[in-house]
């Protein structure tokens, strides 16, 4: 069974600074995808960024980027120039290639951006 672990239950960062959220996972697959989702207090789960495991280059979406270390099975999310609107729960998620694309989620990291 696949597992996804987020070791930081809560984090805080000052507005305009940079923060990194950690995620590790376990899989026997060689080709797969990884996702980071954001869930603000409004509840809707929003896709932030995705990484394809066979790509060496780390994915980037505006202020969001990942540090993907395939051998270490690590997939961290870096948020640059943090904004108040980044305050949310962040979930690392891993689709099961053998069962449609059902997602296994980590336990989440609650990020608070302080003014």
């Amino acid at each position, binding site marked *: 069974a696949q597992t*996804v672990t987020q070791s930081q239950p809560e984090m805080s960062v000052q507005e305009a600074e940079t923060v990194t959220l950690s995620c590790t996972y376990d899989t026997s697959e060689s080709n*797969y*995808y990884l*996702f980071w*989702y954001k869930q603000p207090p*409004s*509840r*809707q*789960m*929003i*896709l932030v960024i*995705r990484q*394809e495991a066979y790509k060496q280059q780390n994915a980037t979406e505006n202020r969001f980027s990942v540090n993907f270390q395939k051998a270490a099975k690590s997939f961290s999310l870096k948020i640059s120039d943090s904004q108040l609107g980044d305050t949310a729960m962040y*979930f690392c998620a891993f*689709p*099961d*290639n053998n*069962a*449609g*694309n*059902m*997602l*296994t*989620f*980590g*336990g*989440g990291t609650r990020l608070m951006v302080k003014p």
Partner: protein
Amino acid sequence: DAGVTQSPTHLIKTRGQHVTLRCSPISGHKSVSWYQQVLGQGPQFIFQYYEKEERGRGNFPDRFSARQFPNYSSELNVNALLLGDSALYLCASSLGLGGNQPQHFGDGTRLSIL
């Protein structure tokens, strides 16, 4: 374009009752998945449907059932409700079943069991 829509947004039930939650996927999406999110935890997979067939089932009791209709909308049914069923129920849709196809989530239904 409309996103994933779920109804109702909130629901209060008592133990032993049954409940039906509804989900309409993004237009063109043929896959619908259901997740249960207990407060303070990550979502847990319940079911996935594609082209009206069940394609995956999580570790939930038989009290949980679902179906997908010809228009790709879906219902999640829970019978004999328990206090532990109190949670946010999320519906997600995707174009297909590929791992590269991200799931898009609705706002969820908050179910409270008294």
